[in-house]
């Protein structure tokens, strides 16, 4: 395989949750990292001269080709996409456009302008058909919501692209900087607000009995790097801890870290239309082929997440 002259990796979706952590990781071993963000998305952090930021439009293929032609990234971590919060539910078309068509255009651009780049695409565990057993890569697919459909379309687009791509199915991940649209982060934010005295000591929750395979986002980011190093193009890999945590258990762990007493109440508005009772992955393939495994204990993840929200709501440290 041809090797690009400059060892500069590219992260798309670099202002996103996993993207920002991957960017941090890559900066510990690379003198420079290219980072793409959505012009209308979150603001780009400033101050680190080692990051080459660009506002990129995934639907603008000529623009992507021009940028990639200049950049010639060693690895492309494609993490950009419409996330699984609110928006995808309201607008399935937009999810398909960004996640599937955007990936298609990006991979076409890679093939034409930067064919030596290795590509890792961040998919989703929500492409699987619901199952109460640990999901393996060969298990039946059957997404149950518009977001999952868009991620399955993305995966199929990537699988059939001329450019060889390592495909991934990350399960839930959690940690600092996570949007409050995700349940773990929502709990942590509410606790931080209650601690800061800006919210009544009442925590609104959805379905506490659902069980989710949760990985620390920094472990997830490391998995992307491990898959860029070891993953076989054209193959798909779960990224998960292999442990399903009951949402109520996660809540109790967070309440144990709270500095104040908090009451808990269920809120009908927080129940999603099709909440799977359990989503659990089998990390056997990624462990066997890359040596990666989830390392950060859930209590560390939750403590760091809560600590981050405390800084966001301005509570004293």
């Amino acid at each position, binding site marked *: 395989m041809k090797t690009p002259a400059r060892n500069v990796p590219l992260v798309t979706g670099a202002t996103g949750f996993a993207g920002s952590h991957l960017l*941090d990781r890559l*900066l*510990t*071993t690379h003198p420079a990292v290219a980072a793409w963000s959505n012009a209308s998305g979150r603001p780009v952090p400033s101050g680190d001269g080692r990051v080459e930021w660009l506002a990129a439009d995934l639907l603008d293929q000529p623009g992507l080709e021009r940028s990639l032609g200049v950049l010639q990234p060693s690895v492309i971590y494609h993490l950009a996409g419409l996330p699984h919060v609110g928006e995808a539910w309201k607008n399935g078309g937009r999810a398909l456009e960004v996640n599937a068509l955007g990936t298609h255009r990006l991979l076409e651009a890679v093939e034409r302008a930067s064919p030596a780049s290795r590509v890792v695409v961040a998919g989703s565990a929500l492409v699987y058909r619901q199952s109460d057993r640990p999901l393996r890569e060969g298990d039946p697919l059957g997404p149950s919501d518009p977001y999952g459909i868009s991620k399955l379309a993305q995966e199929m687009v990537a699988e059939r692209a001329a450019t060889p791509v390592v495909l991934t199915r990350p399960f839930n991940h959690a940690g600092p900087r996570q949007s409050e649209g995700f349940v773990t982060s929502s709990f942590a934010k509410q606790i931080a607000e209650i601690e800061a005295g800006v919210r009544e000591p009442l925590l609104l929750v959805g379905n506490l009995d659902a069980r989710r395979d949760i990985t620390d986002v920094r472990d997830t980011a*490391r998995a992307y*790097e*491990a898959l860029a*190093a*070891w993953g076989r193009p054209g193959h798909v890999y779960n990224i998960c801890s292999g442990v399903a945590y009951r949402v109520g258990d996660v809540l109790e762990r967070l309440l144990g870290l709270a500095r104040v007493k908090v009451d808990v109440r269920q809120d009908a508005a927080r129940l999603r239309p099709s909440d799977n009772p359990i989503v659990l992955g089998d990390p056997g393939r990624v462990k*066997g*082929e*890359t*040596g*990666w*495994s989830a390392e950060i204990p859930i209590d560390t993840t939750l403590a760091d997440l809560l600590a981050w929200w405390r800084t966001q709501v301005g509570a004293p440290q």
Partner: protein
Amino acid sequence: MVDVLVTGGAGFIGSNFVRYALGRHPDWRVTTLDKLTYAGRLENLHDVKDHPRHTFVRGDVADATIAGPLVRAADVVVHFAAETHVDRSIMSAGEFIKTDVFGTFVLLEAARQSTKLRRFIQISTDEVYGSVAEGSSRETDELKPRNPYSASKAGADRLAYSYFATYEVPVIITRASNNYGPYQYPEKVIPLFLTNALDEIPVPLYGDGLQVRDWLHVDDHCRAVDLLIEAGTSGEVYNIGGGNHVRNVDLTRQILLLAGKTDALIRHVPDRQGHDRRYSLDTAKLQRLGWTPAACFDKGLAQTVAWYRDNQWWWRPIKDADPAYRSYYSSQYGNRLP
């Protein structure tokens, strides 16, 4: 003449330092004190052992009857002697406490009675800082050793400082990053992988191979220690780092490439317990004294590979005496094993 005592002078870094010192300083008389355990080998000193300005003494730094008089006769002590292999420390920590901590205590006790000693270099390690997720460790950072080896070294590091603070022993502490170069015992990652690769034996890579180490060529390390003997300030700590932050996966692939082998030899093995993810040193303090690493990592690694390829007399007996290697080698190569 300057009398220099090098403890652990038959080990990897120590023997490189003895060779460097004899070549560099015509006015130095060098005494090597070494217990000749497994990694301390006279073969490491084969070309300088009988040098007219070199004396070899076999003995344990923890034995005051041997180490004491040697320290009291020295102008300069460079204390390399230590148990150093993290995996061994995880299996059995006792030897590490005995050699690394108690051995240092014995030398320091002798040093404080000396009337002529003008420098005591305590060779510590960057591993005393523990894993650093980002940024680089400075000499003033908190010590957070995470395995019995680094904890022993942290104990010796601070004990040495206490003998400066309490008794004014002219101690300087160095904390160097991972060393590479000739004469490194083939249990450490570079010579282990390389000597395996030369024999087409799989190389066992820990975990995902994304751990990062800051590689320092042993020659650059020797120059730094030499500089600190002359220009360092007593009671101070100096980081010594090569500034080459390399992921283990890239290191492994580079070794295999240089050995003319493919990635097919790589085997993922479960990660070491408490494996530190990343070390990184800020070496500004040492650089202010005029030191910079001279070795380019790619070139230094290629030279190291060439050295092991050309000096099989040095490492073959070690590998052949290793039961695991023997059994693997014999299962692969049958009766071709000597």
